């Protein structure tokens, strides 16, 4: 992969759109490139949620262990998506396991550090909360649609 400055990558990512300069630099300072091999665990359910990730390449499965069913994947996230928002909401623990299903490259951001800064600078906190709320909303909508089990069997007419 070609080396690109973290600043440019972050600045272009939809999650950071509209952020003003001093904050963007702060994020760059808290960011680092990471890589996970296929099958590697990124975080486990119950663990401390101190980071979040912008997926640049690859696929991550969010899964949970269900008795008698083994591990059940509830969602996969791919290129351009944000992995993890539990770092911003108490008790700051991961709800699910995250596992790379293929070679995955991402930018990891230090959520714990950003949490601390947000306590001091509420404007920063507000910017973060706005963006996290949007992600949560998307996940909630998608989860609800999954819940409806629209493809479930039922008496049918056409098709």
């Amino acid at each position, binding site marked *: 992969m070609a080396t690109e400055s973290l600043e440019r990558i972050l600045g272009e990512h939809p999650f950071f759109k509209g952020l003003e300069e001093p904050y963007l630099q702060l994020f760059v300072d808290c960011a680092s490139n990471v890589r996970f091999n296929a099958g590697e665990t990124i975080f486990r359910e119950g663990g401390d949620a101190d980071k979040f990730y912008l997926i640049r390449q690859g696929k991550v499965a969010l899964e949970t262990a269900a008795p008698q069913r*083994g591990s059940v*994947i509830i*969602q996969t996230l791919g290129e351009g998506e944000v992995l993890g928002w539990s770092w911003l909401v108490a008790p700051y623990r991961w709800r699910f396991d995250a596992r790379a299903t293929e070679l995955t490259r991402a930018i990891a951001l230090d959520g714990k550090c950003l949490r601390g800064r947000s306590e001091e600078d509420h404007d920063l906190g507000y910017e973060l909360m706005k963006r996290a709320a949007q992600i949560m909303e998307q996940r909630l909508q998608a989860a609800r649609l*999954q819940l409806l089990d629209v493809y479930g*069997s039922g008496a049918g007419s056409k098709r």
Partner: protein
Amino acid sequence: MMATLSDPMAPSPFRVQGVRKETYDTFTLELLPANGATGFAFAPGQFNMVYVSGVGEVPISISGDPAKPRTLIHTVRSVGTVTKKICQPQAGSVLGVRGPFGSSWPVEQAVGSDVVIVCGGIGLAPLRPALYHVMANRGKYGRVALLYGARTPEDLLYKTELPKWRGQFDLQVEVTVDSATGGWRGNVGVVTTLIPPARFDPENTVAMVCGPEVMMRFTLLELEKRGVPSENTFVSMERNMKCAVGFCGHCQFGPTFICKDGPVFRFDQIQPFFVTREI
């Protein structure tokens, strides 16, 4: 074999030549005319009324290749008395067929545009003929994307064809399931999540959508968010049908008869009825 204009309620016999199990409750049937006719011409998106002798008749979309009319292909889900019988044919058994009926996918209008096909569950079955047509005339279209969602990996239709389509360099195929066990290496999530990253130009795209109504509602919202005009979005609707020729009145959807004004509709033309509950 057109339903004869003189008696549109009389089926023609078709012999079941082959049955292929797609999922635990869904089967694809290959039918040949039993009375010597040479084939069955249809347009993608149309449907037939399929009759099991003495039992009943149900509307089923045609899911074969319109360029290969020799055999008639139907993918059927076993959910009731009639479909159960259709899915358990005896060797050489005969079904009655009336049709083809209804409007078709806008494969002509889409010439020169990108094409996005979004389907869920068995909704891929009525769209497969459109995909066949587009791929057979590939040069006429821009980018082509197939976005397909199902309940679990076991519920995917056309499991051997999907990877073949995916393997073609000029077709984007994205598949997702609502849930999967750990061994699944593909996407998990609702089909709407496939829309934002799909490769097409919203200002020059024709979108064709088919699936459960709830899924279509959310899909249409997502397409709208990406900027695809509702005049370029087409959906396939479904209602109770008894006659398929506009006489029994059962399939009415607002002012339209789904059997003759549909099942394929341009979305902006039915939008107000689509969002009205219990219509």
